């Protein structure tokens, strides 16, 4: 399998407090990676270093064989990596349409229009809400919008930080089940998702990476084997590293 994104020995800190310790992982073309771990393990921190919101202290991020560690977020987005923030991932004061335009920043007018229609075709519920202020939408609709926004720039790699956060079980199920369709429709090559709802996410994933206290403690290519007993994974959560 072709390597798309390679993370090599990443250390990251907030101020003096080191959060990530020598994290390495690979995302290959076609892979669907589930990133799990207890609260505070550093999952969000890891995705932030990959997209460039947080510069790593050590280590490198390679994308398509090119070192992108020094690139700005903007450059990475242009190169095809998109990141869905865990919280507050839309701009509440702008309309749905403007939020989408924001996702497609610097696309030409025609491209923007084309892309928008494509996104709306897979997010039907947004169509009647284009002129609504995003802040007035429900939690589920917001997550759908946030996902739509990061699809506007034709990403190859999607980094999703708890796309089902705060959603009712049914809506959570829908959004995760929709991922495969989206991936096919938008030709996304690999997805890395943080998700606490293991039952749902294990069905979706092709690979699991388990993070505890800023270290990778388990990598498995057979997520399906855990579907019957997700507790097997969760017990790691309480392990001391």
């Amino acid at each position: 399998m072709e390597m798309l994104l390679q993370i090599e020995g990443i250390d990251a800190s907030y101020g003096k407090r080191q959060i990530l310790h020598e994290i390495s992982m690979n995302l290959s073309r076609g892979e669907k990676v589930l990133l799990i771990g207890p609260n505070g393990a550093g999952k969000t921190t890891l995705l932030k270093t990959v997209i460039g919101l947080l510069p790593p202290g050590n280590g490198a991020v390679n994308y398509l064989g090119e070192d992108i560690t020094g690139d700005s977020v903007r450059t990475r987005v242009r190169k095809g990596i998109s990141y869905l923030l865990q919280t507050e991932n839309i701009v509440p004061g702008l309309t749905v349409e403007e939020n989408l335009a924001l996702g497609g920043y610097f696309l030409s007018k025609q491209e923007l229009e084309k892309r928008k229609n494509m996104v709306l075709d897979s997010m039907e519920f947004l169509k009647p809400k284009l002129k609504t202020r995003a802040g007035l939408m429900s939690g589920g609709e917001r997550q759908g919008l946030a996902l739509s926004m990061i699809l506007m720039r034709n990403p190859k790699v999607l980094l999703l930080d708890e796309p089902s956060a705060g959603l009712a079980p049914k809506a959570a199920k829908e959004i995760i089940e929709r991922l495969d369709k989206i991936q096919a429709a938008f030709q996304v090559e690999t997805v890395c998702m943080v998700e606490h709802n293991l039952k749902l996410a294990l069905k979706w994933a092709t690979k699991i990476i388990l993070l505890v206290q800023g270290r990778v403690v388990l990598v498995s290519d057979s997520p399906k084997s855990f579907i019957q007993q997700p507790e097997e994974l969760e017990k790691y959560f309480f392990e001391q590293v």
Partner: protein
Amino acid sequence: MNYILHLLIMIGIYMILSYGLNLVVGFGGLLSLCHAVFYGIGAYACTLLMMKCGLPFLPAILLTILITGICALIVGFPALRFRGDSFVIVTLGFQMIVFTVLYNWVDLTRGPYGIPGIPRPVIAGYEFTTLPEYLIIVWTFLILIAVVLFIIYKSPFGLALKALRDNEMAAEGLGKSPVHLFLYAFVISGMTASVAGGLYATYVTYIDPTSFTLDESIFLLTVLLVGGTGNRIGPFVGTVFMILLPEALRFLGMPDAVAANARQMIYGLTLILLMFFRPQGIAGKYMVR
């Protein structure tokens, strides 16, 4: 009649100032306390270029825009690395420094004595001296600048500024660089203010540093807060209201000495009432979003 023309000219000049400031305050959500500095740099640069270098008005104003843009870039870069409160403080510091320079660099600016006898604009051999002529030149510049700014307001850049204002993290995660975008806004806003400065200087034909104080910067912010920010109508409403209010007081038959004080108090009172009843400003509801 002359009195009305004068008011219209001043409204034009202040509209240029507030539409420019709107980009930083209304769209970027950054409170700048140094807009009068760019207005002042514009006035002095244009004056000196015309009087000391003998440049005609148009080349002088173009160079003025350039010079002011560079100044804005130099201040904006450090100011915008840390946004929020520290931005306000840095702009305040800049305001104080430039005022002190204008006041004390007597060789260049004549300091407190000011510069009298500023020539009127001559464009294509035609000198703009009378009030109606001046009205035309000011409003022509206003319209040109407003058109450019309105395009910017509506552009992806304007949208990105609003997004950064509302939710910086989300916008940044989508690949918008806050420092760069805010810096562009700050520089554009400074450049438009410098045009107002050049127009003001050649209109009143006398400038001194007291026109470009912190008070003036606060007044310009007040104009925006009163009118409403982040849209096209707010700066217009704010400017008209704030310029006509003192004139209205005069019509009420208040003696000038009393009116001057009453004006300050009424401005203050207006702000307080607004915060209670219409925090978005008088025209804040016409959000062009």
